[in-house]
């Protein structure tokens, strides 16, 4: 191979552009897209299992497999979210908000392509940040101690109002239910059992993934089965509307949500232990606030879909940055990857970027290639995936239910998880029929433990002073208050203005 310039950066790129490394990238993409599309099987699990086989490979090849699985799973998991209302991994929870309504309207194909473009854009944006500003940004991430994490989570909790899609009271009730579920398990500080009802498995808390599969997937199938007789509730095949690719006009409308998603996702991704699930929801709500058509959100808005998907994939660059530059896992997938890297003799941490600049450019190259190839593959196979919906619904229901069960079982090889999935499917059905949105409940379940544990850690160390002396925490708390107070105030102002002198839709900025 001819060396163009002997800089470590080009070295790093060249090591990736070898035939065998590229083959491993291809392998990773196949595995990643498959596991992503399978509800219950998360990227974390796939990477963990694959790391058992990749240990014998060269570090770069091994990293190529693991990173591409991670990247490709982010595309695969949107497919079941859009087609059958079941997030393939938690990162695509926000995809269900608008993706599934779009599919119901007969626009599944358009939703899938838009989502793939949004995901790719988010991914590229995140990678760019990793390539350009990893070190300074990781220092920002280090500022996030317990008080700052608590404030960030409080901000996340204010999203409950947004994801209630107009039904504020019922949304808050659902959110409270989620928070209540989050208290089940061992107390994070004292270790005492809470609401475990003498069920051994509940010591670990209410398992999160079975709950989302129940809430979204199972509940939707049960609902369809129940309502079928009254109005043939069948998902129309996409071909009816014929549109696959977003037109130029539509693309222009999507730039704003893409930007919002990319920035939101990158920031959230940097914070250790917070991942794509929360980032997607936050960006979805942010985009709704600045959209010209907020009323469409939750009913099939391509803007909402794009914002959520861009954001949840943009977290990847952020979590890789935190992991590599701080040695602190940016999310659960990276936690697994750190283990493999140490065995390869790569030690993530602040010294990595100065001691192995070639490695960083290799990582960036791997992720770039993986993103572009996965986007291409996603677009190619989309028509096949949508065909699935043309199956008669009674077949489809059975297939979805079986997939949900097998996927849930495979998380922990646990029948208990399957029971939980069924129970929460029934609960989800109840919520669906009585108009309680599932989004706030899921948000409560994810964020509840984070809020509680971090607040209590902060209180142990310095009392409330630790929260109120942290500038980051104060800013985040102020934004949270604004997120709750400003929209109703503005609505009132608008009403007054409209009464005063004709309608003048106030230009929104948050």
């Amino acid at each position, binding site marked *: 191979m001819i060396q163009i310039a002997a800089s470590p950066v080009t070295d790093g790129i060249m090591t990736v552009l070898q035939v065998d490394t590229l083959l491993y990238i291809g392998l990773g993409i196949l595995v990643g897209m498959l596991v992503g599309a399978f509800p219950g099987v998360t990227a974390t699990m796939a990477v*963990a299992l694959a790391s058992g086989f990749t240990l014998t490979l060269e570090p770069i090849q091994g990293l190529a497999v693991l990173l591409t699985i991670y990247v490709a799973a982010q595309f695969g998991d949107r497919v079941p979210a859009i087609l059958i209302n079941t997030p393939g991994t938690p990162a695509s929870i926000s995809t269900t908000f608008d993706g599934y309504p779009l599919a119901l309207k007969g626009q599944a194909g358009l939703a899938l392509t838009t989502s793939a473009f949004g995901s790719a854009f988010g991914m590229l944006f995140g990678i760019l940040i990793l390539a350009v500003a990893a070190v300074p940004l990781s220092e920002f991430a280090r500022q996030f101690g317990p008080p700052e994490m608590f404030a960030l989570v409080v901000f996340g909790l204010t999203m409950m109002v947004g994801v209630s899609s107009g039904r504020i009271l019922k949304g808050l009730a659902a959110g409270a239910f989620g928070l209540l579920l989050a208290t089940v398990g061992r107390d994070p500080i004292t270790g005492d059992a809470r609401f475990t009802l003498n069920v*051994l*498995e509940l*010591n670990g808390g209410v398992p999160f993934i079975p709950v989302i599969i129940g809430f979204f997937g199972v509940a939707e199938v049960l609902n369809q089965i129940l309502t079928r007789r009254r109005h043939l509730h069948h998902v129309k095949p996409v071909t009816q509307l014929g549109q696959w690719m977003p037109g130029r006009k539509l693309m222009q409308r999507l730039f704003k949500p893409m930007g919002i998603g990319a920035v939101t996702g990158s920031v959230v991704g940097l914070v250790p232990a917070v991942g794509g699930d929360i980032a997607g929801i936050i960006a979805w709500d942010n985009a709704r606030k600045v959209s010209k058509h907020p009323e469409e959100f939750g009913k099939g808005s391509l803007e909402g879909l794009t914002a959520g998907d861009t954001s949840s994939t943009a977290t990847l660059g952020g979590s890789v940055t935190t992991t590599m530059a701080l040695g602190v896992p940016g999310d659960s997938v990276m936690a697994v990857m750190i283990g493999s890297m140490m065995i390869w003799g790569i030690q993530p941490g602040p010294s990595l970027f100065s001691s192995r600049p070639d490695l960083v450019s290799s990582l960036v190259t791997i992720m770039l290639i993986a993103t572009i190839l996965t986007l291409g593959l996603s677009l190619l196979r989309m028509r096949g995936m949508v*065909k699935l919906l043309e199956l008669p619904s009674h077949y489809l229901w059975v297939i979805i239910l079986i997939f949900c069960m097998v996927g849930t079982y495979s998380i922990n090889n646990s029948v208990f998880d399957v029971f939980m999935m069924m129970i929460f499917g029934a609960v989800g059905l109840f919520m669906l029929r009585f108009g309680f949105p599932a989004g706030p409940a899921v948000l409560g379940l994810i964020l509840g433990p984070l809020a509680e544990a971090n607040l209590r*850690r902060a209180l142990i*160390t310095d009392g409330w002073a630790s929260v109120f002396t942290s500038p980051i925490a104060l800013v985040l708390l102020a934004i949270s208050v604004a997120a709750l107070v400003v929209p109703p105030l503005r609505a009132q102002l608008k009403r007054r203005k409209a009464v005063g002198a004709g309608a003048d839709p106030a230009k929104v900025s948050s």
Partner: protein
Amino acid sequence: MKTLLKSLAVGTAGLLALTGCASGSNSSSEADFPAQDIRLTVPWAAGGSGDLTARTIAPLLEKELGVEVIVENKPGANGSVAYNWLKDQKPDGYNLSMMGVEVATLQFQDYDIDPSNYAPIGQGLAGPGAIAVPVDSPYQSLKDLVADAKANPGKVTYSSPGVGSVWDSPAQGLQELAGIELTSVPFDGSAPAVAAAAAGDVDFSIDAIGTQKNQVDAGKLRYLAMLTEERDPKNPDVPTAKEEGIDLQNASWVGIMAPAGTPEEVVSKLSDAMGKAVEDPEYKKVIEGSNLVPTFKDAEEMTAFLDEEADRYGPWIKLAQGK
């Protein structure tokens, strides 16, 4: 789509065939053990160092025993889901589980886990501990830390991976031995706990030397004292806690166990195989790469060790709960 369905169908058929095989043969005497595949359960989620140990040692055990060793994760409730499951399995040596110190300690935290329900096979590794402080900490030695904690009871904080965990408990021991009062800030596992100390959110970290190593190498943490009998060969400049007047040692460990009642002959066969696997260079490379120490104790030593651990941790956990 058709090909996907087809491959799914083939895959499922294959899986069914596999399960059929596994449940097929059942009769085997102790003499010709092992006559069928062995299941090695991992009580933790895939990806941690315990899971890694299982996946590294399984092929080496296969080499020694001549049968497949199938690794299966059964995480949940601090490992107690798998431990409970193992208790109810037939004690014939075909169902094993990885084990950690929780087997000895969960009983003190209202879990229904009794060490006497298990027959230890052996230990596979150890992760000796250390006390480390943020690099700009005023403490230059463990004595400084103890003196400060004496002057300001309850003001000095440390991060732990969780109440009753393998690293929170020795911190209770430290308080008892030094006659001081510290404040524990429990995190959700070792990685965030060590990171919190590196960021200066707490005054010190008590965890495995290997877990802290990343942050020490990065210049964010500084080892204050090792919780080992002798000085750590890789860090010869760092004194042991014992040298500083506090006779405290602790190490995390991972082992393998079978249900109680497994025939002695079977246990010793498994234990021998495990001993050889731990000596294997392949195993050593992986474990040392994770900054852990390959360590072997045979079945007999391990049984005694498990009791010792219970005796050691019990009072520490009670101490922590009393606060």
